[in-house]
């Protein structure tokens, strides 16, 4: 059967781009990126090195440089509690942001008026700075805030702002980051998800089946990436937790800022130590995310 011959001849995978050409293009691309990379590396690596040196006692404001981990142990217990608290806040708000953002992306994909409304709302909330968002959340959710007044629940209003569970902080992060996650996921779904959904429907997949077996896996890389960005941002930013949280225990960035601004100038290495711990944990989160991405076939 001649057809079969044609088929076997076709079974071989198409040759990839010629190796020589690909390498050259890659080198060119790298060269083009070099100036920007150098600048960023100078700021990031330089800054990190300075902070690390300060935290290890190598750059004291007064006195002789001496290598020591005293700055790390000075608030040992508080530092550990801070790591736990920051992880919990960032983790909870990232999970919420991913859930809400994914749902928002699905609504945006519907393309009807409510989808457009959600998309417009998300786009509008992106440029709002976190500190403005935090102030707004405070006015809305505080014990004497707008919602408490609207519902006339002055006495029974839960401790959302400054409460034990950091709800207002988590809420603010979840709100801001869900808009970000939603737009990123909608962006990746926009191109082909309708076709894939129809295909899946015709293969017998109902709404839930399509969500689980098509839309979720298709959005997973975008979800992981945007979720990681949201996580690291919430983990490292101080203003929301400072405005809406309670003074103790402290998330790492709030603690770092307080120590840095302390009347006692010798507390600066301790602030640097907290900053180093924050950076190391963030880096760890990014590495975990990359490891997750590598396991996904779609990411290649």
């Amino acid at each position: 059967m001649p057809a079969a011959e044609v088929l076997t001849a076709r079974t071989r995978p198409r040759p990839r781009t010629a190796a020589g050409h690909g390498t050259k293009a890659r080198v060119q691309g790298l060269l083009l990126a070099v100036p920007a990379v150098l600048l960023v590396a100078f700021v990031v690596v330089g800054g990190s090195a300075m902070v690390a040196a300060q935290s290890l006692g190598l750059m004291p404001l007064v006195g002789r440089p001496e290598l020591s981990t005293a700055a790390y142990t000075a608030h040992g217990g508080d530092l550990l509690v801070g790591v736990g608290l920051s992880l919990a806040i960032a983790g909870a708000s990232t999970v919420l942001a991913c859930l809400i953002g994914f749902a928002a992306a699905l609504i945006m994909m519907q393309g009807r008026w409510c989808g457009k409304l959600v998309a417009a709302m998300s786009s509008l909330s992106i440029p709002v700075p976190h500190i403005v968002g935090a102030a707004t959340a405070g006015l809305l959710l505080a014990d004497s805030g707008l919602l408490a007044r609207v519902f006339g629940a002055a006495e029974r209003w839960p401790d959302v702002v400054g409460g034990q569970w950091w709800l207002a902080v988590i809420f603010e992060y979840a709100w801001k980051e869900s808009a970000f996650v939603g737009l990123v996921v909608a962006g990746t779904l926009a191109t082909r998800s309708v076709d894939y959904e129809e295909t899946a429907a015709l293969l017998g997949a109902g709404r839930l089946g399509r969500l689980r077996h098509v839309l979720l896996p298709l959005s997973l890389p975008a979800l992981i990436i945007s979720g990681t960005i949201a996580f690291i941002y919430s983990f490292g930013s101080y203003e929301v937790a400072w405005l809406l949280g309670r003074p103790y225990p402290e998330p790492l960035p709030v603690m770092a800022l307080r120590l840095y601004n302390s009347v006692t100038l010798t507390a600066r290495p301790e602030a640097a130590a907290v900053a180093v711990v924050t950076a190391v944990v963030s880096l760890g989160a990014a590495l975990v995310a990359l490891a997750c991405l590598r396991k996904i076939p779609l990411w290649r």
Partner: protein
Amino acid sequence: MRQGLDLQGLSKSFKGSPVPALEEFSLSLAPGSCTAVLGPSGSGKSTLLRTVAGLEIPDRGSVLLDGQDLAAVRPERRGMAMVFQRPLLFPHLNVLDNVAFAATIRGVPRRRARADAEAFLDLVQMEGTGKRVVSDLSGGQQQRVAIARGLAARPEVLLLDEPFSALDPELRSAMHELLAQVREKLNPTILMVTHDRDEAAAVADHLAVISEGKLLQHSTVQEMYTRPASLQVSRLMGGTNEIPGTVRDGVHYSALGAHALPGNHQWPEGPATMVIRQERIILLDEHSPGLPAVVTGIRNRGPRKLVTMEAAGVNLHAEATASPALATGDAVRIQLPTPELAVVGGTSEHRSAPLTSPDWKVLA
């Protein structure tokens, strides 16, 4: 009980489009048959398929499968699978899991679903590719996997929306062969949209010609060529010869004289246009018996030639093998064999000569 697919009076308009995509479209497909829907681009072919699949909701009319109205049945419950022009394999699944998708959705245990999928990969001659990543496959391979995926859902109706149009010709004929095997083994009812007449003739037993959302004719492939229902169908099927005249007692009278029509059909009396496929006109040298004609143009069509002639003021086209050395201005004789003749109602306005190539892509 399989009663096949019945489309009754389907109408569908889209916002912002003055022409309805479907208008009173009715069609009956016998179970296990393969019907190709032919029509130019924008004629409503794809809308028809999407409406049958439940992806579009018709304004009026209904889709019946085995006698059951599917109006309230969601696409995922219609027992239909569709293969699109693009393979649309799920990029997050490997080849095998793509084919196993329908089974996975139904909750079949993974091992069994995969074993089943292997069988369908064998069917489309893609055995051993199951572990591959979708993007490693060529376009033709992906399309074969897409067909395997559709078939693995064991659809009662297989909908094909120009599934082979993005493939190169040799691969396309291989796919036609594959489709024939699938019909032999699984016997689904197939509704296929195409704009390629040769493809339609190669894979389908029935043709439905559609234009501007309306069904022009539904018949066997052979009939579609030899007994077009209208001038429009004749033209859409690539027919180029139209001889205006009148029918009396089964004989067509025209500038070319009297031609007896095939006796197995009741031909309506009155003004009518006689049509004959260009492949069926017999071209002879000027000393042979037949109608005298003069060659007005020759166009090469690969191994064959499309010869344009004038006979008694009528423009005619004939396909000739390359052997007789013909040149423009040569005198020839032609014969119009009775079994190849057909007439369609009414006189036609004369088509302006010279004809462009009856290529669907040009029409599109």
